[in-house]
């Protein structure tokens, strides 16, 4: 139904997989060409002259719009406080303070907290929370996708419905519950709620339905494998692209989470980056003579850098997963 039916046939239909071994780059080039072959030639759309140029220009403009804040942050992470305010925002200025600012991140700034601490915290929460959320979503998604137990449909709708609940209705009372359970200022207070990702369950269920054939599971069952075994040996390898997507979403979600840690942490050492940066921002304006601004800018830069890199790495899985998540509505 999709482009796959019209992908050009292999040169020798009966030579079983006799493709010459190719390097990664060759394979990517080939995939690129196949993608181009599989797309409808542009001229068939009957475009007026210059449409392509106009559209490309629009893309460039929006790309500029997208990159402006990032560019700004890169340039200004190298400046002193005075220069941030004084000099042209989109170019460097002397003195070049990049490394100085970077080093400052490792120090406790006026008792307002140490950036590097926050970074470590964020990484911890994001990894544990993200991986945990992915695992739970994978299990639950599998349970919903390939089993029919009583109430599974209702349960699923409830889980999806929880997306409608405002964060305040959950997080604030959570704080009260924590105060009774001594979970205030505990890393588990941050990690455990992060394990709950309804979107992840939704995506995994969709993906598993599409990529783990029912017949395969049934065949394994007939062969006498236990359900756990089936999950890990049969289903899991097929779920990988979906897992990557959910992992990415979960990690990003926890990394960027602001409201939950804001509420439950009062101990500065436990802050993730989001809360810490928010605090700095607040202090920078209220008590104006702290040299916080360059740190805020540098901090912001270091905050976004790992995620962007993570994106680029997980990029190829990302596309496939999103696709399936959006169709199956």
């Amino acid at each position, binding site marked *: 139904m999709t482009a796959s039916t019209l992908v050009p046939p292999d040169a020798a239909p009966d030579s079983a997989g006799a493709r010459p071994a190719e390097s990664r780059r060759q394979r990517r080039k080939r995939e690129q060409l196949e993608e181009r072959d599989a797309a*409808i030639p*542009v001229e*068939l*759309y009957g*475009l007026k002259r210059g*449409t*392509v140029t106009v559209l*490309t220009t*629009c*893309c460039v403009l*929006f790309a500029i*719009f*997208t*990159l*402006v*804040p990032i560019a700004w*942050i890169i340039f200004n992470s190298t400046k002193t406080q005075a220069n*941030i*305010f*004084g000099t042209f*925002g*989109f170019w460097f200025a002397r003195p070049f303070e990049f490394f100085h600012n970077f080093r400052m991140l490792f120090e406790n700034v006026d008792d307002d907290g140490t950036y590097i601490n926050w970074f470590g915290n964020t990484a911890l929460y994001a990894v544990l929370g993200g991986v945990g959320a992915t695992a*739970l*979503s994978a299990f*639950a998604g599998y*349970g*919903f996708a390939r089993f*029919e*137990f009583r109430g*599974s449909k209702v*349960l699923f709708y409830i889980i999806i419905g*929880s997306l409608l*609940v*405002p*964060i305040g*209705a*959950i*997080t*604030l*009372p959570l704080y*009260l*519950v924590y105060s009774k359970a001594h979970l205030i200022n505990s890393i588990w207070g941050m990690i*455990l709620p992060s*394990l709950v990702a309804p979107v992840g369950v939704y995506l995994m269920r969709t993906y598993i339905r599409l990529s783990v054939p029912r017949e395969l599971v049934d065949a394994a*069952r007939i062969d006498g494998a236990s*359900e756990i075994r089936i999950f890990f040996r049969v289903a899991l390898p097929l779920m990988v692209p979906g897992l990557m997507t959910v992992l990415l979403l979960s990690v*990003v979600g926890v990394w*960027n989470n*602001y*409201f939950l840690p804001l509420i439950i942490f009062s101990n500065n050492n436990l802050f993730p*980056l989001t809360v810490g940066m928010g605090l700095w*921002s607040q202090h920078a304006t209220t008590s104006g003579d702290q040299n916080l601004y360059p740190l805020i800018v540098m901090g912001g830069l270091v905050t*976004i850098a790992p*995620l962007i890199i993570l*994106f680029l790495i997980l990029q190829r899985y990302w596309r496939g997963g*999103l*696709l399936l998540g*959006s*169709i199956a*509505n």
Partner: protein
Amino acid sequence: MSAPAPTRPARDESRSRPRHSAWVRRRDRAGLAFVSPFLVAFGLFMIVPLGYAIYDSLFTSRIIGGTVFSGLSNYTQILTSGMFWSGVIRVVIFGAIQIPVMLIIAFFFATAFDLGVAKFGRAFRTIFFIPFAVPVVVSALMWGFLFEPSYGPFVHLASVFGFHNVDFLSNTLMLPSIIVIVIWEWTGYNMMILYTALKSVPREVVEAAILDDTPLWKIIVKVKLPLVRPAIVLLIFLNTIGALQLFVEPLILNNYSAGVITLNWTPVLYIYNTSINDAQYNLGAAMAVVLGLVIVAISFTSLLFRRSKGEFS
């Protein structure tokens, strides 16, 4: 020629009734086992707090007398509270402007990339998606710097175009500025979802449309758009929920332009201030419940509205 009975195109997933043999029941229990870790966490960290919130909302704490059951008095207080509803109206206006604009931009680019009519599609898509990697706090910080009234580069830029002394973070311009910020943050994500949805439109249907000599605008609007409607509905849904809970951007921008953001500027801000700063948890909980109901109401009406209208804008 009698027509054969219509057949279902795809396998119907959830229709088979399990026979209640022991084997099947055991298998179903296994399903439950898979779902249970999530359910436990879900119950503990979503249901319990939510229930607690609802419970709490029925009480009031007084300085004298402690916490007493007050029934729905918190709710009546909120429902008549101008402060609360002005915040609600503000986010509704915010969403009503931001969401369509963003979706149109996202759809525009998604279509351009899907059709392949813009060069370097892959590179652009990656660039557009970068804001998704930026935490909202950092994005608000960055934009705060850019919009800053006294030294922000955008003020500079505006004066180049002839607008002098523009205060982007003033009372009048704060909301539009936040709209710009949110569009910056979320367009890439929306665009990616729309792009992959568009890619899943069967190629042959578009080819058939080409052979029927369908002009491009018609292909986009009458052939592709209806087929990606589920994705659009999903996005409207998600975006609405997010828009109504606007919180971080105003909170951070307040640091750059004190006084513009009031305590009740958005509902969630109001809830936050009421609960944390004023320590009126009960009232805050009630507000959260009311907000939740408002969100449900608006989400569903927007879905219904789209469905009956048939097409998007």
